[in-house]
């Protein structure tokens, strides 16, 4: 772009699927508006890889100065990213990373480390079991995000790998997807409650799902004995923690996420040095330390 401003295109994963992504989009636009030296083209792939690739092609064709991509599939976008690279357009990946094969065409990744998030959730869960003295007999069920999504897979992997390391005697007895959907998770949890007389912990891939599971347990009068741990602390999760029914989560701000992505892109365009893996921190949050955090806006 001319007139001393940069034009940056972004193709988001699936705005509207939950309030995280919406808040991200709004924060991204707000950050761009606050900055005179940048204009943005904001596109949404609606969760569809083909649409995302088409959007990348459109952005290349429009000759934007940089492209930010929130991948719908961390591998499928690589050839499109290469195309941008070949057209000398720097690409910044946001929120969830692309596969290593594509790293050579990418300037930087900016976002949370979802594998670490999963391990942290495992640690929160295990610490709680230890505090309750049930670390040798506790049974856990696991509700994952939308099947096939990188974020969902990485968190599940982080949790499943870490839990046996910290709490080797805790048994994970079932795992089903809740599709990032509160209602779906509530149904899944209802079935778990019928099927298992003994459930001590529920790990959900995000708090929307976690609260769905919590609602099911509350309705069945079994919430008391269960430790609920989630990820991405949505406002509902924060409130449930304040109520004392939900135990812990991972604090992750979509505003930080969006601002970091835009800043990284601008830094790249200005030729500044940026780390390749530009993680922003996503700390543990539990009933015990929650007053250190403000209530999420989303």
């Amino acid at each position, binding site marked *: *772009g*001319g007139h001393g401003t940069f*034009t940056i295109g972004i193709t988001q994963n699936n*705005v*509207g699927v939950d309030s995280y992504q*919406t808040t991200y*989009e709004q924060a991204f636009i707000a950050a761009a508006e606050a900055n005179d030296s940048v*204009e*943005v*083209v*904001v*596109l*949404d792939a*609606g*969760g*569809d*890889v*083909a*649409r995302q*690739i*088409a*959007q990348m*092609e*459109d952005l290349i*064709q*429009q*000759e*934007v100065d940089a492209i930010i991509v929130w991948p*719908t*599939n*961390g*591998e*499928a*976008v*690589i*050839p*499109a990213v*290469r*195309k941008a690279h070949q057209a000398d357009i720097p690409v910044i990946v946001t929120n969830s990373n692309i*596969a290593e*094969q594509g790293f050579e065409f990418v300037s930087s990744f900016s976002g949370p480390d979802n594998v670490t998030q999963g391990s942290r959730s495992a640690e929160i869960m295990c610490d709680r079991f230890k505090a309750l003295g049930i670390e040798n007999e506790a049974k856990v069920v696991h509700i*994952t995000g*939308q*099947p*096939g*999504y*990188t974020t*969902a*897979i990485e968190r*599940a992997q982080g949790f499943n790998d870490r839990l046996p390391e910290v709490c080797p005697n805790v048994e994970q007895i079932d795992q089903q*997807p809740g599709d990032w959907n509160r209602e779906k998770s509530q149904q899944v949890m209802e079935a778990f409650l019928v099927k298992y007389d003994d459930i001590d912990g529920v790990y959900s891939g995000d708090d929307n799902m976690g609260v769905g599971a919590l609602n099911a347990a509350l309705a069945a009068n079994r919430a008391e004995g269960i430790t609920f741990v989630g990820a991405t602390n949505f406002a509902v999760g924060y409130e449930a923690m304040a109520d004392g029914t939900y135990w812990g989560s991972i604090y992750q701000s979509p505003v930080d996420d969006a601002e970091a992505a835009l800043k990284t892109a601008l830094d790249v365009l200005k030729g500044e040095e940026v780390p390749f893996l530009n993680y922003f921190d996503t700390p543990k949050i539990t009933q015990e330390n929650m007053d250190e955090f403000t209530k999420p806006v989303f």
Partner: protein
Amino acid sequence: MAELIFFSIAGEFLSVSEKAFMDFDNMLLLLKQSAPIGIIAVGMTIIMVNGNIDLSVGATFALAAIVLLDSMTWPFMQAMGNWAIPLAWLFALATGVILGAINGLIVWKTGVDAFIVTLGSMLGYRGLVFIYNGEQPTSHLNWTLVDFAEAQFLGLHTATWFLLGVVLLCWLLMTRTVHGRNAYAIGNNREAAVNAGIRVGPHFLWNFMLIGFLAALSAVVFYSESGSVNPNDGMLYELWAITAVVLGGTKLSGGYGSIISTLGGVIAIQLLRKGLGHIGADTETVNLVIGLILIAVLFLDRQLNRKGKEELRT
């Protein structure tokens, strides 16, 4: 096309891009991007002309993609070097044909309505996709393949050639061959076709195999370039394909429709999406406007095709 003009003008004022919407390269890109849905929509036209519907194409698309990409990682395939590529295509296409044949056979032999059969297999085939590789994406990035898929010949992308080829061949099939004409007759008046001694079952079977093939071909074209498939890929493609077909004027009740008009429907949808992006509409607006424009196009189309005042008021 009304959308074209609208977005060109709106783009002048709203877009941050200095490139015009009507830019020739942009239109070439549009054709290319129309290929995945377009190839499926061509098959859907045939199925709908025949009096059926196929809701399982999205899942077939995904399963064929998995076979395409995964087969290239099999040891004997890897040993073949780039010769594995045509073989992988073949496997993928065969997958599509088999899945189509399953639908076709069930429709034929049980007499259960195609809507229900394929609503079922939309779920069932999606289940197979997940069973194949759990929740993980299936990936195999082969740069030779990508280069082929990204290539341009006489200015048109590989995907565009495939789309145009499919449109041409299927158009010939439906307008020039006995099979095509019989398919129209069956969709138009099944009982009459049966009375005339046309074997309805085999026609169903062939056409379901054809749409399976085309769904797989669409996957071959698209995933040769992208190299990775999510287990959720292709969801809702059936609805977009059907929308394109109906926008093209094909009757849902069968017996009437044209492949060429379907191509028009596909391009209209793609234009809409691309145009909305071009003028910088946000997600809410895109959803709202796509929906309303779809209805508006249908409305205009009806107004233009009215028979006038002499029509019966039924």
